[in-house]
């Protein structure tokens, strides 16, 4: 698609979409949303970039190697946090018993491992959407 209007609007709107996605992920333990929703928003912003500028341009920003590594890293990060719980308290994915800092109630830094897990899920979902879309669109 080679349209000036679509390209200009995409350039203007993508930073706001990605900022909103990061907001939803980081506030997953305070407001509606969370890792799955925020990751889907970030993934959708990259899909919009692919639709407007073409797959070659998006791959020069975010190559398949990076999305694959982020995907594997998301799962490993999740399991790693669970293993920290086993090492400290003997409970897989333990939160308070594993000694994660609880923070003050209602602030962004609270809830121990919950926000860490939400970040992992968000990265995972975003990279899954991007690489799935790229693999399917490359078929043509």
């Amino acid at each position, binding site marked *: 698609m080679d349209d000036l209007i679509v390209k200009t609007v995409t350039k203007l709107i993508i930073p706001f979409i990605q900022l909103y996605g990061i907001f939803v992920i980081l506030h997953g333990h305070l407001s509606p949303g969370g890792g799955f929703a925020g990751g889907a928003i970030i993934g959708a912003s990259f899909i919009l970039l692919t639709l407007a500028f073409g797959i070659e341009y998006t791959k020069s920003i975010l190559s398949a190697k990076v999305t694959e590594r982020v995907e594997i890293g998301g799962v490993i990060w999740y*399991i790693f946090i669970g293993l920290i719980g086993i090492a400290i308290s003997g409970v897989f994915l333990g939160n308070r018993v594993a000694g994660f800092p609880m923070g003050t109630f209602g602030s962004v830094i609270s809830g121990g491992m919950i926000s860490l897990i939400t970040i992992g899920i968000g990265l995972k979902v975003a990279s899954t959407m991007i690489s799935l879309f790229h693999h399917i669109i490359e078929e043509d």
Partner: protein
Amino acid sequence: MKNYLILITLTLLLIVLVSSLNEMPVMGDIASPAYNEVAEYYINNTQEDTNITNIISAIITDYRAFDTLGETTVLFTSITAVVSVLGFSIKDKKE
């Protein structure tokens, strides 16, 4: 003969399933077994246990974090399957 046997078995199974439909609790029934003390426990103890304001987030990433790990693994498995089916054909085309 074999087809009739299959048909009869399936019909009997259908009768069993449909008859048990009547025993299901009505939607919104207060005596339904789904409304038990677990929901009350989540509402009363989320702040003490996890110190966060979003109870749903507490359920999916703390109380049932192992289930969410399975969900994440499902995503990982699906992308692995897609890449293993589509990825090779792309490589062949380029070479």
